[in-house]
């Protein structure tokens, strides 16, 4: 156990150190985005550097991007139609104007890639090696899915909502289709978002309409939505099975999944992230403020504790923002170190249901749901 912990921490430190050594290869600019950590430029998979996480709402130009398959051709607002079909009394074809005429709801909610933090797992697992930044908190607005389904008249036998985006796979790559239990789809906070932080969704984030499933993993929030289908059974395509499933019982690290024991991910764990100081950075010795964010899926954040001595002593950080489900809370704590040297800073969140961030994140074959206590190292130097 101790060895495992040490190995994991060593892996984090190694990954973090290399992250600081900025790569020289920066040949690509992504329209509408500040400099981002570039995991894939075709299609764009972009991670937010932690230094941009200094506001409650993550600016659109700094928000992470995850795409599985190539982006669809830009959708013309006037030509857009949303099909609502399946187990409904009336099949609908809705224009963007129709969607705007429905009551508009608004929700601040975190979007976090299911694989955020995958790069910290050891042994390594395939997939984008995200660090801390495949996450953001935005204000989403648009009609409620429940209002759209009410118009169509969902049959009482329907139990799932299948959502298809306009993107399609290359060659035999599966289409990106996701299913949601109808109960979650009908939750008043589940939206077909048209706006992000008060602006129409940019193409990269799903223009003109995307699902927002607050508190669940980012992959639930399908972009470029063109079809909603009420169904009795969940879709069984790749992105529902085996994609985005998590072992029901924990596996020894490095061992393969047992397909029959994989479950669809619903909800997200409790998690805090340190955004300042940056891992493996240097700073002048003197008073400083340690900052970060914390969120807990469908729960809300109750407290965040911070240690500056590797976990011997903990102090409670000051939280800002309302105690809400779905959204994150920013936290900060003042620190007055007296000696120069290397410090290990940890953060640990607790949520409203009593969940506490673990020391060790549970290894899983797809590298999902990393939520170990966050850890950064900082070297404080006496000023000359």
């Amino acid at each position, binding site marked *: 156990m101790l060895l495992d912990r040490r190995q994991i921490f060593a892996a984090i430190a190694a990954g973090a150190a290399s992250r600081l050594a900025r790569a020289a290869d920066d040949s690509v*600019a*992504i329209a*509408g985005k*500040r400099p981002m950590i570039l995991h*894939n430029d075709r*299609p764009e998979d*972009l991670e937010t550097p932690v230094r941009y996480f200094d506001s409650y709402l993550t600016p659109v130009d700094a928000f992470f991007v995850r795409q599985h398959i190539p982006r669809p051709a830009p959708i013309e607002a006037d030509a857009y139609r949303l099909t609502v079909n399946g187990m409904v009394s009336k099949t609908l074809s809705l224009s963007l104007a129709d969607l705007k005429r429905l009551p508009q709801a608004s929700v601040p909610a975190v979007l976090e890639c299911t694989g955020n933090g995958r790069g910290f797992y050891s*042994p*390594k697992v395939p997939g984008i*090696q995200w660090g801390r930044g495949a996450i953001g908190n935005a204000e989403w607005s648009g009609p409620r899915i429940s209002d759209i389904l009410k118009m169509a008249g969902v049959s009482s036998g329907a139990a799932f909502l299948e959502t298809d985006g306009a993107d399609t796979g290359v060659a035999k790559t599966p289409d990106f289709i996701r299913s949601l239990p109808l109960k979650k789809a009908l939750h008043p906070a589940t939206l077909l978002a048209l706006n992000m932080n008060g602006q129409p969704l940019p193409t990269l984030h799903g223009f003109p309409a995307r699902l927002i499933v607050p508190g669940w993993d980012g992959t639930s929030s399908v972009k470029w939505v063109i079809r909603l289908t009420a169904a009795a059974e969940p879709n069984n395509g790749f992105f529902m099975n085996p994609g985005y499933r998590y072992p029901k019982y924990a596996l020894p690290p490095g061992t393969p999944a047992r397909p029959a024991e994989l479950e669809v991910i619903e909800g997200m764990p409790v998690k805090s992230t340190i955004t300042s100081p940056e891992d493996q950075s240097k700073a002048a010795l003197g008073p400083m403020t340690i900052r970060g964010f914390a969120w807990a899926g469908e729960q809300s954040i109750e407290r965040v504790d911070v240690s500056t001595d590797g976990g011997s002593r903990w102090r409670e950080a000051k939280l800002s923002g309302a105690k809400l489900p779905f959204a994150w809370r920013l936290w900060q704590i003042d620190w007055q170190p007296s000696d120069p040297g290397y410090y290990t800073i940890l953060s640990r969140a607790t949520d409203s249901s009593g969940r506490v961030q673990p020391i060790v994140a549970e290894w899983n074959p797809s590298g999902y749901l990393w939520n170990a206590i966050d850890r950064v190292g900082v070297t404080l130097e006496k000023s000359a």
Partner: protein
Amino acid sequence: MKKAIVSAAAATLLGAAGWSADQATLERGKKEEQQACMPCHSLRLIESQRLSRATWNKELDKMSGWGTVIHDRDALLEYLVANYGDDKPIPAPAISKDGSGKK
């Protein structure tokens, strides 16, 4: 018999040293990476990862299943293991240029 013993010994030595592919195979693997993988995604997606031989092998199976045409599979696998194996250092992240249009 003698030959068999010699090659067995050579195999043991190679095994101990960590078997490595010859340069020509790696060159072929690099070409295959461009030919097979680039039609669907940029090479960054591959080259930012550090995976074991077994895991790269499984990735190739997955991609073949999704319609990727791989002509020189063995060379591609050797190339991936030699350059992006899990014993290789984790690369520094690439950072995109500013595309925000703000100055």
